[in-house]
């Protein structure tokens, strides 16, 4: 595989979080009784006409703005093909004049992925094949639920800029974070509100692009990565066996861990696109663009660099993970506010990414001043790490409070230096062999002694103070 390079582009469909559907007044909700949330328009009844949802346009513009796209005057086309879950037997979609053109998405690892376009279109209904294997060929009959029909989608098409399954996965994850951050979508892959198709080809580095296959039905970040790995390996095996990759659409079978042919290029539909005569062009003016731009909060990348800036200097690998996790969980605002209130940045980040993350919902509403005060006590040696975590749990449960008072109520007193020195001495005396080795330079035994002291003090000793006392005795 090493002599081969993957070339990957993703097409991501995301359902927009609008109140109503794209072209009618039906509510845009998930999980209703089948065919209860429909009307003449989204059922495509004769005589019905679409009216474009302004909120959907606005959310699409937010996505375009977040991806640095050019937001343009746009229009709709009809994409014609017969399918039972598509009520009009054509899909209204943007074609040669999409609303968002030419953006980029930078991945946390630094890779810059080009975004070709991000356009509006309507979702279809949902078909369930009933009987035998649940697959279309073995089904007795099929049921169609049109509740999803007409739900607004934005399709975001990337350039073929990714070179590994991990990169593709990172792109999908980062895009999801952006969609959620802009408020455009809830990004729930498990509910189908974000769906990924992958275009995969392989080549030897420097060669022209190989024949690509489009992989559909990728319902999780994990399946994005698995399917691409499988597909690339399949293509390499073909080529190395002297066979050609056939351009086609393939279906990812999650259970089998394989991609399978859906339809070949010869079977591809002729969609007969033409301008949708029932709709008028959308021409966002500068004011609207500016209003949308102003409505977007900080994006994930900016949130990450804000944390890195707080740390001051190159983050360690562990801190890098903490930055990703804190932003991913929406806890970065807490860290920033706590640091503003005087907490040490590294400690605030670590506690947020590790401890607060155990109860993210509470963490997002935690009073940053209380969090900051607690971290200051810990940093100042007034509480041990164990004690601080205990107090933090109380703060999270209550949404805030006075950490000093909580610590007092729990009987957490920082040990006086004298009593700590006594305990340390007792531990040293009880373990003469280890102490001798530690004094001779076996530094890692510091942990052994710290652990013993912690056990003896039921976790109330301050770790730094213990280390200082050990150093003092050793010298």
């Amino acid at each position, binding site marked *: 595989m090493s002599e081969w390079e993957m070339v990957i582009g993703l097409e991501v469909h995301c359902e927009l979080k609008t109140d109503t559907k794209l072209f009618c007044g039906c509510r845009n909700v998930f999980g209703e009784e089948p065919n209860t949330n429909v009307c003449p328009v989204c059922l*495509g*009844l004769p005589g019905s*006409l679409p009216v474009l949802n302004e909120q959907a346009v606005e959310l699409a513009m937010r996505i375009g703005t977040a991806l640095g796209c050019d937001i343009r005057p746009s229009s709709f086309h009809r994409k014609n093909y*017969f399918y*039972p879950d598509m009520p009009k037997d054509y899909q209204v979609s943007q074609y040669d004049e999409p609303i968002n053109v030419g953006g980029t998405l930078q991945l946390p690892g630094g890779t810059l992925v080009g975004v070709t376009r991000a356009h509006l279109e309507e979702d279809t209904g949902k078909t369930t094949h009933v009987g035998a294997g649940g697959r279309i060929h073995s089904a007795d009959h099929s049921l169609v639920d049109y509740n999803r029909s007409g739900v607004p989608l934005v399709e975001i098409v990337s350039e073929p800029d990714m070179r590994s399954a991990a990169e593709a996965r990172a792109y999908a994850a980062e895009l999801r974070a952006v969609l959620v951050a802009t408020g455009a979508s809830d990004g729930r892959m498990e509910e189908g509100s974000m769906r990924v198709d992958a275009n995969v080809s392989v080549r030897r580095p420097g060669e022209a692009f190989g024949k690509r296959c489009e992989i559909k039905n990728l319902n999780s970040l994990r399946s994005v990565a698995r399917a691409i790995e499988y597909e690339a390996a399949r293509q390499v095996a073909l080529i190395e066996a002297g066979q050609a990759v056939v351009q086609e659409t393939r279906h990812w079978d999650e259970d089998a861990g394989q991609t399978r042919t859906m339809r070949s290029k010869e079977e591809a539909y002729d969609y007969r696109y033409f301008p949708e*005569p029932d709709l008028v062009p959308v021409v966002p003016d500068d004011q609207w663009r500016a209003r949308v731009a102003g409505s977007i909060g900080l994006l994930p990348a900016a949130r990450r660099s804000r944390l890195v800036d707080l740390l001051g200097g190159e983050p360690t690998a562990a801190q890098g993970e903490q930055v990703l996790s804190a932003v991913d969980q929406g806890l970065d605002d807490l860290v920033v506010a706590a640091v503003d209130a005087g907490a040490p940045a590294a400690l605030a980040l670590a506690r947020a990414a590790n401890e607060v993350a155990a109860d993210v919902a509470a963490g997002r509403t935690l009073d940053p001043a209380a969090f900051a005060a607690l971290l200051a006590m810990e940093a100042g040696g007034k509480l041990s790490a164990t004690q601080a975590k205990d107090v933090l749990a109380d703060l999270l449960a209550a949404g805030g409070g006075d950490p000093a008072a909580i610590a007092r109520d729990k009987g957490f007193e920082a040990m006086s230096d004298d009593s700590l020195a006594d305990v340390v001495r007792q531990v040293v005396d009880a373990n003469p062999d280890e102490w001798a080795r530690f004094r001779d330079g076996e530094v890692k035994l510091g942990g052994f002694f710290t652990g013993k002291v912690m056990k003896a003090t039921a976790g109330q000793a301050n770790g730094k103070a213990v280390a200082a006392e050990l150093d003092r005795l050793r010298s």
Partner: protein
Amino acid sequence: MSAQAIADDVRSGRRSARSVVESSLAAVAAGDGDVHAFLLVTADDALAAADRVDERVAAGEDPGPLAGVPVALKDNLCTKGVPTTCGSRILDGWRPPYDATVVDRLRAAGAVVVGKTNLDEFAMGSSTENSAFGPTRNPRDTSRVPGGSSGGSAAAVAAGFVPLALGSDTGGSIRQPAAFCGVVGMKPTYGTVSRYGLVAFASSLDQIGPFATSVADAALLLAAIAGHDPCDSTSLDRPAPPGLVDADAGLSGLRVGVCAELVDGVAPDVAKRVRQAADALAAAGATVVDLAVPELRYGLSAYYLLAPAEASSNLARYDGVRFGLRVPAADVTAMNTATRTAGFGAEVKRRIMLGTYALSAGYYDAYYGQAQRVRTLVIRAFDRAYQQVDVLLGATAPSTAFPLGDRVDDPMAMYLSDVCTIPSNLAGHPAISVPFGTGDDGLPVGVQILAPALAEPTLFKVAAAIEAAAPTAGVGLGPHASEEPAVEEGRSGAPGGVAGTEAAR
């Protein structure tokens, strides 16, 4: 009796809406066996609606400008709970769960819907012979077609069943049958009347419009149904045109162009009537000039690519999955095919094939794309013409009503029936057909007036002047001998008149 007079009587309590509707229903019962204008007569609903109008009058309320006026609806307008067939088997059993916007507005204006009228299947045709439920006959001569596709509505008004009817006009489907049946038929500016609830044929061309026995009644009906509708994105955000025709203002200062392309190729007896109508306008004070707009000749070709292209997409939804006919088959694709094969008639299939081909990969630019460019040329040509004149005058159809069966085996000959009406649809402009005497065969001739977008008031004014000068006030039932026009002066707009117009530019 005019719709205006009926509404006046009902509003003032001189006559009950029930009695008006009863006589309309009686006329249908007596005469529609020969004509077959109606696919469905909704007698019970109509009488109940009439009673509600009467109750409102009794309560001192005003039921609206069309109080108690019976109206027939072309059967491609959705009516809640009432079958809407589009003249097709494929909508077998379908009852729309909603009313078209125009139906809501008719009811709000006090009008009473008495039934659904026959049409060429999905409005595709020019003779109403393409209906799956049998043809409509022309009440003026039942051996002749009423024109189409809104032949049922035209015939219902011409036969005196109803004073008003609605049709839809995609390439002349209101104006051509109006001409054939000797009534007034008008296509408004695209976007004037909401298309919500009109079963689509070719969305960028379709427009609902009125049939009436007079220009004044047509204007009255248009005013009741027009105006912005938020349910139709192509609906213009402006008020409806006024319902009163400004007939007394005179035509002084009005410039009329007799359009060569709408006169030269038509039957001599029809062309003669157009010339006489032009003379009448000149006599009434208008400046009449001859004007060539050569691009209009390409309208027909462009139309028969664009309209089928849109139709091929609009008619895809009749797939047997959700409503109407379903012919069971082994799998869903086979079911689609079997249903559409059984449900659609030959002309609909022909146009779906044409349109599918015109949009296909590799052919799109040569057909659909080229037709769109021609459409743009037609619009520009009209724009240039309207710098010289205020309205254009021509024939509505190349001939009078032809015999039933005459063109059913010759689609091209049938398509040519629309050659004079199509350009206004391509441009989205208003146009009206006004009866003006008869042809050599004694059948009605329609004169067509074309105007630029939103010029309905001018259009109605000119139409009223032609109506006033027409050789007969309204052609009666049965074939008539040709009568001489009331105005027979020389044409003031002969070539000499053109110079003045040219100089003015």
